[in-house]
């Protein structure tokens, strides 16, 4: 509710890309953060309770698990590329001239890296190997 109000406020005085970039960056950052906390706990189980870890891993490797894996990868890739764009513009303000180009370049890289990545992760769906 408050976040929505913030979004409206932003919509008012900034370009469309700026608003979307900010919202996606925040949402992806919070999402990856949640996974990192879960991931440290699951890896802790490798030492503490390997059987429980293997059970969770079976979910990660399942079909729904793989779709979530793609979402995580997309969030990380978006956040990384947009983060780099932020860093470039913040530390070298003259880069702001190329604001639009940087925005589009980051989406082109997102698709160019993300689509093959998605295919690799989802491959067992149409080509089940010993793992699935």
């Amino acid at each position, binding site marked *: 509710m408050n976040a929505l109000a913030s979004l409206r406020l932003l919509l008012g005085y900034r370009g469309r*890309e700026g608003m979307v970039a900010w919202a996606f960056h925040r949402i992806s950052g919070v999402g990856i953060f949640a996974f990192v906390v879960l991931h440290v706990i699951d890896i802790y189980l490798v030492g503490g309770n390997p059987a429980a870890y293997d059970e969770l*891993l079976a979910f990660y490797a399942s079909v729904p698990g793989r779709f979530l894996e793609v979402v995580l990868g997309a969030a990380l890739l978006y956040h990384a590329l947009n983060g780099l764009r932020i860093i470039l513009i*913040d530390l070298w303000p003259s880069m702001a001239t190329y604001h639009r180009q940087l925005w589009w370049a980051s989406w082109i890289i997102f698709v160019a890296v993300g689509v093959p990545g998605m295919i690799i992760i989802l491959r067992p769906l149409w080509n089940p190997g010993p793992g699935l």
Partner: protein
Amino acid sequence: MTAQRSVELSARSSARARPSGSRRELLSWYLMRLTGVALFVLALTHFSILHFLFDPAEQTAEFIAEERWNRIFWRAFDWLLLMTVLFHGFVGMRTVLLDNIRSERNRVLIVYLLYGLAALVFILGTQVILTLPVRGQGA
């Protein structure tokens, strides 16, 4: 419906504007960017190896003990990633929370809970990296 924000945004980069006034806030602003560059390498390498080169189906507890963490290099790499992400993720979450919580009492409480969670993640992650026995051979 005035959304009072605790951080100002830069119109140029559509991210948090470089804070002025507090040295501590300025330092964390720069460190968010420094750790961001480090994570670009560390996190994307980690993800590429474990999701593209290997498949999750093969990464059993046995695999981690026998293969992945049988090399001191990869343990150190993953610990460095953990330290970087701890700083970046928790400082980032602090910004998000302060931005969205209005009540002063809740702010203080929730940020303390966040620091507590950071300490827990630090301890669990560091403990398993340090104590999972190295099986030998490749190390």
